[in-house]
């Protein structure tokens, strides 16, 4: 049906607050008599997560952020009817607050290269017609009608595409192994389990452009000689399941799935299998067990899945994002793909940039771009007044790259050499208010919950590592804890059965490598300089700096700060729950984070003089402290808690 509407209103953030105004939007368009001219499209993710809901009016590509139901009449009136721009809804650049009208003029967008995500937010995900209209299924046609399976494999090999699930295995080689394996019945599988906390690239892809994954899988099936494909989607993504289901059905109607596809004497079917809430089912052998209906437990992988995988048949398992790259490589050629990225890591990668940046969201960048560019130019840098401390990549299997190393290019090898890994694409930015010990504790807690429990080293080892880290964060650590933690990490990494266990110690090992001092402070000084580990801190107001503005009083949930206007205030150490709200509220750097040991009988034993410079926790232990009475006689240098101090 050819409808000649003049503009699309592409609405994103369907999991956010967009559903609150979409009905109103449609009604208003109807009411203004524009229903024939303007089409509302519920579309995929555009990536500006802190500015949602976003919508784009295309043409010309006017991009509005933070849209609410109240804005709808104005949008329809000004932009759709009169063709004018609603200034207050435009995207503002983080530096300089300059307003940008069109999506592709946004600087954060300019640094990206959206290949896999190019249709997300641009087309209606379930519309196969729109997918075809923007070039979809051309690659399938090219592969099936002009190439042999071996030629397709050769092209993928030449492109240098590597698995986007995290391990980065050469995709072409995996396809070749599957093709060469013995067996009449083979399978291709898409891993859409995406269990890493903070990762949602595959989600956006499956929800926003399901046909790209399907097309990639059909081409893959053709190449390796498989006629049955499976997409394993985590059950927590119902919209992905729904959209993939619709896409599969439409593809079948168009003869792109099923029998004798495009007359090439090739049969292919795809089934969706839903996960049941286990992170470990993202591990390839556990995933295959899950598809078979068994408990998702990994097995020893001496025999690769490409030889004996699903139901003991040769199976080619790739991440959803890997599959989505395939049509582009076939269409534009291996050389084009290989021209993007670095020597060893070709193409682009989708990341979920989250945490302490002004512009968090879903991005796609060429390999080789530096972390610094990603964080500062795409992410907009840290919020005002904060400094970046580290960037965590690779989810629970990855590690932290400290701020000093942010110049490194993003590439499979450089990230592993730095003690982290590419992972599936989670990228968490941390500032000086993040405790690195707490971060490794957080990831271990996640892994302890998600460990399948089969092998003793992961099941018991991760549990014991978590115990030690919890003790460290609670202030009950012993001297022997750090060596024991390292010994445990070594055995868990070397002796566990699957990737979950083998990589479980990575967060601990990488934070120990770059932030050893924080661990030492936690264990020896019982002090958490970032204020996160509540048992290890106390908050103190420095008289000299406090101007008595009262912001902290308002922030304190315990009503624990007293003082008259314009007079220095005081924190009641008995009422204080160490939440840090006062620290965050104070604009004058007057609140200090000190070791808990300094509070004795409800009083701060050591009066402290603050340091100069911008607000920086790590406070009194880094600078000389005057007028100190330390019973232990540490004189002059405030290092360590006073001896004999009660906790």
């Amino acid at each position: 049906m050819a409808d000649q509407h003049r503009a699309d209103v592409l609405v994103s953030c369907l999991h956010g607050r967009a559903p609150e105004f979409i009905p109103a939007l449609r009604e208003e368009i109807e009411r203004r008599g524009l229903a024939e001219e303007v089409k509302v499209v519920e579309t995929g993710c555009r990536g500006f997560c802190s500015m949602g809901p976003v919508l784009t009016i295309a043409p010309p590509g006017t991009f509005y952020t933070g849209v609410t139901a109240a804005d709808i009449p104005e949008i329809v009136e000004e932009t759709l009817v009169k063709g004018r721009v609603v200034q207050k809804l435009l995207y503002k650049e983080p530096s300089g607050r300059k307003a940008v009208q069109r999506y592709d003029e946004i600087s954060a967008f300019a640094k990206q290269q959206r290949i896999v995500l190019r249709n997300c937010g641009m087309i209606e995900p379930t519309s196969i017609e729109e997918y075809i209209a923007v070039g979809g299924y051309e690659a399938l046609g090219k592969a099936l009608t002009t190439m042999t399976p071996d030629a397709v494999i050769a092209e993928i090999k030449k492109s240098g595409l590597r698995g986007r699930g995290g391990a980065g295995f050469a995709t072409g080689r995996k396809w070749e192994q599957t093709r060469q394996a013995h067996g009449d019945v083979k399978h291709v599988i898409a891993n859409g389990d995406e269990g890493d906390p903070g990762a949602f690239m595959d989600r956006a892809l499956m929800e926003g452009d399901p046909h790209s994954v399907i097309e990639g899988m059909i081409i893959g099936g053709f190449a390796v000689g498989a006629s049955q494909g499976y997409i394993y989607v985590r059950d927590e993504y119902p919209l992905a399941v729904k959209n993939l289901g619709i896409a599969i059905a439409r593809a079948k109607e168009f003869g792109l799935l099923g029998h004798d596809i495009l007359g090439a004497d090739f049969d292919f079917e795809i089934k969706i299998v839903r996960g049941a809430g286990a992170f470990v089912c993202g591990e390839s052998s556990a995933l295959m067990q899950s598809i078979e209906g068994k408990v998702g437990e990994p097995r020893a992988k001496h025999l690769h899945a490409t030889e004996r995988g699903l139901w003991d048949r040769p199976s080619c398992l790739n991440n959803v994002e890997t599959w989505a790259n395939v049509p582009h490589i076939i269409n534009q050629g291996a050389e084009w793909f290989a021209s993007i990225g670095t020597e060893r890591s070709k193409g682009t990668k989708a990341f979920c940039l989250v945490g302490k940046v002004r512009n968090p969201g879903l991005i796609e960048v060429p390999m080789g771009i530096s972390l610094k560019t990603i964080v500062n130019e795409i992410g907009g840098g840290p919020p005002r007044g904060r400094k970046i401390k580290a960037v965590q990549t690779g989810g629970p299997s990855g590690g932290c790259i400290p701020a000093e190393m942010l110049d490194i290019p993003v590439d499979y090898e450089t990230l592993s050499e730095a003690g982290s890994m590419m992972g599936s694409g989670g990228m968490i930015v941390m500032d000086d208010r993040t405790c690195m010990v707490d971060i490794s504790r957080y990831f271990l807690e996640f892994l302890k919950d998600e460990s399948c429990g089969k092998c003793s080293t992961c099941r018991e080892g991760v549990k014991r590592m978590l115990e030690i880290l919890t003790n460290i964060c609670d202030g009950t650590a012993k001297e022997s804890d750090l060596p024991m933690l390292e010994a445990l990490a070594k055995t868990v990494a070397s002796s566990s059965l699957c990737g979950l266990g083998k990589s479980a110690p990575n967060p601990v090992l990488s934070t120990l490598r770059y932030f050893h001092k924080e661990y030492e402070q936690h264990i020896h000084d019982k002090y958490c300089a970032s204020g996160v580990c509540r048992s290890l801190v106390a908050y103190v107001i420095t008289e000299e700096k406090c101007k008595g503005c009262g912001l902290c009083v308002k922030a304190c949930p315990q009503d624990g700060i007293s003082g008259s206007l314009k007079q220095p205030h005081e924190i009641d150490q008995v009422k204080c729950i160490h939440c840090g709200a006062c620290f965050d509220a104070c604009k004058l750097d007057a609140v200090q984070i000190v070791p808990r040991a300094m509070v004795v009988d409800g009083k701060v034993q050591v009066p402290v003089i603050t340091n100069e410079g911008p607000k920086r926790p790590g406070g009194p232990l880094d600078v000389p402290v005057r007028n100190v009475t330390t019973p232990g006689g540490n004189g002059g240098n405030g290092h360590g808690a006073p001896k004999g101090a009660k906790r």
Partner: protein
Amino acid sequence: MTKTTLTIDGQLIQADDSMTILEVCRKNNIPIPTLCYHPVLEPYGACRLCTVEVKQKGRNWSSLQTSCTHPAWDGLDVQTNSPEVREARKMVMGLMLSRTPNVPVIQELAAEYGVTEPPFHVEDPNEKCILCGLCVRVCNDMVQAHVLNFSGRGADRKVGPPFMEKTRQCLGCGACTIVCPTGAIDIVLEEAGVYAAKPLGPTSAIYVPSLQAVPRVPVIDTDSCIRFRQYDRSLGQITDACGACQQLCEAHAIDFTQKDEIVELNVGAIVVATGFQMWDSSKLSQYSYGKSPNIITGLEFERLSNAGGPTLGQILLADGRKPETVAIIHCVGSRDKNPNAHEYCSRICCMYSLKHAHLVRDKTHAQVYEFYMDMRAFGKGYEEFYERVQEEGVVMVRGRGAEVQVLPSGKLRVTGEDANLGKLVAVDVDMVVLSSAIEAPADASKVSALFGLSRTADGWFAESHPKLKPVETNTDGVFLAGCAQGPKDVPDTVGHAGAAAAAVLGLLNRGEVTISPATAEVNRTRCVGCGDCLLVCPYTAIARVDGKAQINAALCKGCGTCVATCPSGAIEAWHFTDEQIIAQIEGVLEWA
């Protein structure tokens, strides 16, 4: 399956790629510790203890792998005891010991790697399960009862039946208790309640009947064997469950498809020597048989005392202690007018009770109380033995043991009347031996139907004449030997059996047999083949031959039953034909 050569601890070893590194090591006596491995089950790789250091062919870096799962590929370089391996095993044992600190096998293994104290916080000091999965694998893959499985994820993982509830699917086969390395699983017999005793009989479905068995090879009891019990109704055949014995037998001597062989022999004489069975002592509930593992029958005591038995001849209580007091009760189920007991005297029990009393005194020096009614010491040297046993200090209580009570402490209280003292006595003992009745075997009625035997009122097979023909039966050619005819002890049985053998020899050596001429004969023209006569003949002398009845004159006793039964009047009794009888009647009437 290709042949491979790999290096293990510097030695070049031949193997093939269908084996795992662990199997190769076991074959070559290279020690590798394991917990979750069993040769008959699929390897699982859960405990990580069998970790070895492996360098793949052509690479110069090594990794730690579990030897139970890693195939013995060509060109591998394996170190089974390098510092890396020991370090990993030490940590694994440290983790295990912290989970199950009081399991001896875990303590021993941990000590081998220098771990003597749990290095981490112990949550449950009574925990025994190490989640090795052996019980799960044996129950699902081998026994195929599908009762046990893992539930819960990660640190919450546990093993048990669905929802940790008792299930009737459990066969009580005990396979899980056998494979469990830490003794975390117990078998509890529900009806008995207190059973934890060593069984006196065979402990597995495949067993050697006794040390004196000829031939001395194992047999499979198909009633308890899991493979035969797991009969697949849908397929109408036994399943392939278990089969552990077949997998382990190096001589490949086990064949589950063996069928009973039916052999047909034509013989001139049959000796029925089908013996006796023990009367079920639980039929009289006052003796509490079955309520305590320390109340046993005389036969069970024989097994206990046998040097080839479960305790190698030691007299022990169920929990392994030596008894300090034992009571032996005579006439349990014999000389008893109760409907579920026997009125007759079982003959052998007085003497074997004295023997048991003597054995107990000799082996344990326990105090023995014998509750008897009469002491039937009728044979050669028997009375003298009775005297000797009394001199050994056995306390003889003349009065039937009336009741055995199981006390809460586990001791047994025997009450009875001491007729010599004229009062009721009670004594608390550790063990009670019931000298229970012996009776004809349960299938005696089938045997008697088969051979045309009658039975006396007491259930034993009937001899031809109680005084003069103890081994013959009313069916010619069928003889009785031993207890089949009635309770008797070994000397009497030997005598009886010798008589039966002599009778057989006499019969067979005769060549010609003289029989009474008064037999019956069938007129084949008149016989319609109805078969009524076959049913009524007490001597099974009639057979169907070519559709008509035919009488075996050697077996026929001339009783005349068939003559009277035949509806066609086709059978005549020689010397008792209708004409002869009528002539006799006429003759008598002439006189009247």
